[in-house]
């Protein structure tokens, strides 16, 4: 066994030593091991287990949790098609089919020569420039039939990814409407310098005055969170920026980290000053791996400018630095306690709460977890003061909100508005026409129909993490809901019974409806499932898993009714379909080998 491990030790040793043989960095170690070797080999697991003093089953347990990590050989080129509904609307399935055909490979499998594997993945955060794919975890956007053919050619010729045409990897910011944040011309260090002229408590007071609320969607008071954490006792305090932007349809954090990274890191530093933290983490979703070098460069520059490190900006004793932690494909890690588990190198399972992260977070120490946009807002408040900020937006929702607009509109991209903007206004600005519905805040959010377009973005009416997906009248809202339900099934962590099994049951019911075997009975079943998931699920994922279906049943009933062939009794299975194996075995496919449809429905 030792000799087997030897070849893996060669590339694992430098990785392990860079992470100080610390098991809390397991996810980073696994990710880097895979970047080197292509997948995580069983002997590599044995070697890591030995060096990190973990059981190999624990390592396997962690690695198998994240969908971008592989324990089996994958294609030399791993192609993953982003499968959000917006990608579907742009024809991703047809493009995937043609790529599979051109490369002679079946979706979900590795080609026989080991050259390529093709599959789908959850939304990659490129909805404004889809359809998108990841090739070996690097993003390529704006796929067309021509681009797919070009990619197939590059793959067949074994051209290294680094030599592919650079325009394939171009990613646009698409900032369509700027307000105080996106139009701030922020100078790195300016907010920090201003904040450091005040005490930590005075800065906290400014945040309180600003009435800033978390931008991840839940809207918890940022000042309260910082205050709870500050007053909690612990050996260390931590600041964590949640950049695991996994909600389908959201991509604003990607743009903020691309073009406004200083504002985000500076907000984290201001938070560190307030709560007394020495260390911060940016939890970056694995799909944004391509941003890593850029973000490291920004951090490096900030260290040079004394905006990070020891005695920040000459402030004796104020020491703080930020580390970037990459995720590996798990939506659930956007939930703050699951994110912390993942930061600690474990499976991303949400914790039992209380205690909350503000008192017991990373390594059970007091930890603030805030959204990317929240930290950027904190920088603005540090610069201009809380009163200035509180004046913008509405009474209960201060400031602005950045929306990630995608779907059926002329100008998809980022739109920043003071809170209180109507859905209709956003639709007019992005050039949407014949709009049937808008999905606010992604699958876990709210689906609004045309008669509700006067509703307003804000914590009182339509709270949102930012997603704003537009559907015109050509779209089938049943298929929209079905796509979302499959997303939840794929992303359920599997910890609690109701969500693990319930999301699969729900997906099966929607598939049954799609195949024409549903009945009104199924609607009652979905309602029941919703009540159960709401009252017994462990976290928000289970709580919201039925939302897209219930919303669309209530508002777009005809889309469901057209799925119903039968109005009363319904067999739970398709007897004729179940005979297909027998037909295959007997080589028959004549009328006599089929059941008549009418027989089935009686």
């Amino acid at each position, binding site marked *: 066994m030792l000799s087997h491990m030897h070849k893996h030790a060669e590339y694992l040793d430098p990785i392990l030593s860079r992470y100080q043989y610390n098991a809390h960095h397991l996810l980073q170690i696994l990710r880097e091991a895979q970047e080197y070797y292509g997948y995580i080999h069983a002997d590599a697991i044995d070697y890591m287990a030995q060096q990190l003093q973990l059981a190999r*089953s624990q390592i396997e347990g962690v690695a198998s949790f994240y969908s971008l990590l592989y324990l089996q050989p994958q294609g030399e080129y791993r192609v993953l098609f982003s499968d959000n509904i917006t990608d579907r609307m742009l024809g991703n399935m047809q493009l995937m089919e043609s790529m599979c055909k051109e490369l002679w490979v079946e979706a979900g499998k590795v080609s026989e020569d080991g050259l390529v594997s093709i599959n789908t993945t959850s939304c990659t955060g490129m909805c404004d420039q889809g359809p998108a794919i990841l090739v070996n975890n690097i993003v390529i956007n704006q796929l067309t039939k021509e681009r797919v053919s070009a990619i197939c050619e590059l793959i067949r010729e074994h051209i290294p990814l680094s030599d592919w045409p650079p325009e394939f990897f171009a990613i646009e910011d698409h900032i369509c409407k700027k307000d105080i944040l996106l139009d701030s011309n922020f100078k790195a260090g300016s907010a920090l310098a201003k904040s450091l002229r005040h005490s930590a408590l005075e800065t906290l007071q400014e945040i309180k005055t600003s009435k800033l609320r978390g931008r991840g969607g839940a809207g918890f008071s940022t000042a309260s969170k910082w205050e709870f954490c500050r007053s909690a006792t612990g050996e260390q305090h931590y600041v964590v920026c949640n950049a695991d932007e996994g909600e389908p349809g959201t991509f604003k954090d990607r743009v903020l980290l691309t073009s406004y990274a200083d504002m985000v890191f500076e907000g984290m530093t201001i938070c560190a000053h307030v709560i007394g933290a020495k260390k911060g983490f940016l939890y970056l979703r694995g799909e944004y791996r391509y941003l890593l070098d850029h973000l490291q460069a920004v951090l490096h520059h900030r260290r040079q400018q004394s905006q990070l490190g020891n005695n920040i900006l000459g402030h004796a004793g104020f020491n703080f630095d930020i580390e970037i932690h990459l995720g590996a494909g798990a939506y659930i890690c956007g939930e703050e306690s699951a994110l912390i588990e993942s930061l600690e190198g474990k499976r991303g399972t949400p914790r*039992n709460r209380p205690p909350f992260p503000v008192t017991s977070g990373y390594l059970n120490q007091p930890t603030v977890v805030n959204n990317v946009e929240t930290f950027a807002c904190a920088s603005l408040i540090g610069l201009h003061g809380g009163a200035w900020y509180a004046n913008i937006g509405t009474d209960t929702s201060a400031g602005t909100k950045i929306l990630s607009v995608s779907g059926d509109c002329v100008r998809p991209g980022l739109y920043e508005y003071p809170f209180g903007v109507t859905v209709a206004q956003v639709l007019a600005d992005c050039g949407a026409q014949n709009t049937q519905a808008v999905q606010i805040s992604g699958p876990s959010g709210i689906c609004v129909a045309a008669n509700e377009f006067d509703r307003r973005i804000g914590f009182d009416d339509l709270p949102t993490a930012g997603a704003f997906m537009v559907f015109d009248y050509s779209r089938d809202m049943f298929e929209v809901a079905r796509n979302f339900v499959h997303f939840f099934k794929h992303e359920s962590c599997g910890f609690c*019974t109701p969500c693990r*099994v319930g999301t699969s049951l729900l997906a099966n019911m929607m598939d049954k409806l799609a195949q024409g075997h549903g009945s009104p009975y199924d609607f009652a079943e979905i309602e029941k499932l919703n009540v159960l998931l709401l009252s017994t699920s462990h976290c928000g994922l289970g709580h919201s898993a039925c939302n897209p279906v219930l919303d669309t049943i209530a508002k777009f009933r005809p889309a469901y009714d057209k799925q119903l062939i039968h109005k009363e009794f319904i067999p739970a299975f398709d007897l004729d379909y179940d005979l297909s194996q027998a037909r295959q075995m007997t080589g028959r496919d004549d009328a006599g080998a089929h059941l008549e449809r009418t027989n089935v429905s009686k």
Partner: protein
Amino acid sequence: MFQNKDTYTFLLDGKTIPFTEEQTIIQAAMAAGEYIPHLCFNPEFKPHGSCKICTVSANGRQTASCTQQPQAGMVVESNTPQINGERLALLQMLFVEGNHFCPSCEKSGDCQLQATAYEMNMMSSHFDHFFPDRPVDASHPEYLLDFNRCILCSLCVRASSDVDGKDVFSLAGRGIKTRLIVNAESGRLADTNFSGDDKAAHVCPVGVIIKKRVGFAVPIGQRSFDEHPISFTPHPALKDN
């Protein structure tokens, strides 16, 4: 029993239950001889909170009673038609998720899943069965692993890690593909340091970890839950002590 001078009480279905600072609702209830249906909870281990069978309404909010700490004067409802209805649905989910053929199962009569299903008057599995493909591991000379019956309670994981210090078992995968694995590259129990003396060998609430060659030593009809329903049967862990 409660030496702690700060002893408080809460109401469980109208009964007064004393509790100490360290106890969760189910721990206090169990100490007072009250039954709240549960599967992943075992009084010998730190609560896990995953099966959700022990869900109760605490001051009107539904929560897992194994992880929720009570407050003085808290009104807890457990044995209500609504909550038992939800438990029934969760049990049915566990039944359709795995492959549970009670009549041929060695654990029948001693199985907490089966006994709790009886307790909740489960008459059918209601949902469509998933019929997952879960091979049996008979590699170990003394023990058999039948993953078909696994409900992912992680008691064996916790016992092996916290008590035996061995980490023989782990959970792997995600979502509906979550599965129990053992600590060997081959995936076989025989290639781990598992032993029949391990705590992990004796904590499975269902029939995954089965001792070989003693099958049906106790005839069906004379087993733990044949004698009394699970609500009247002291938890095996409590009975042993």
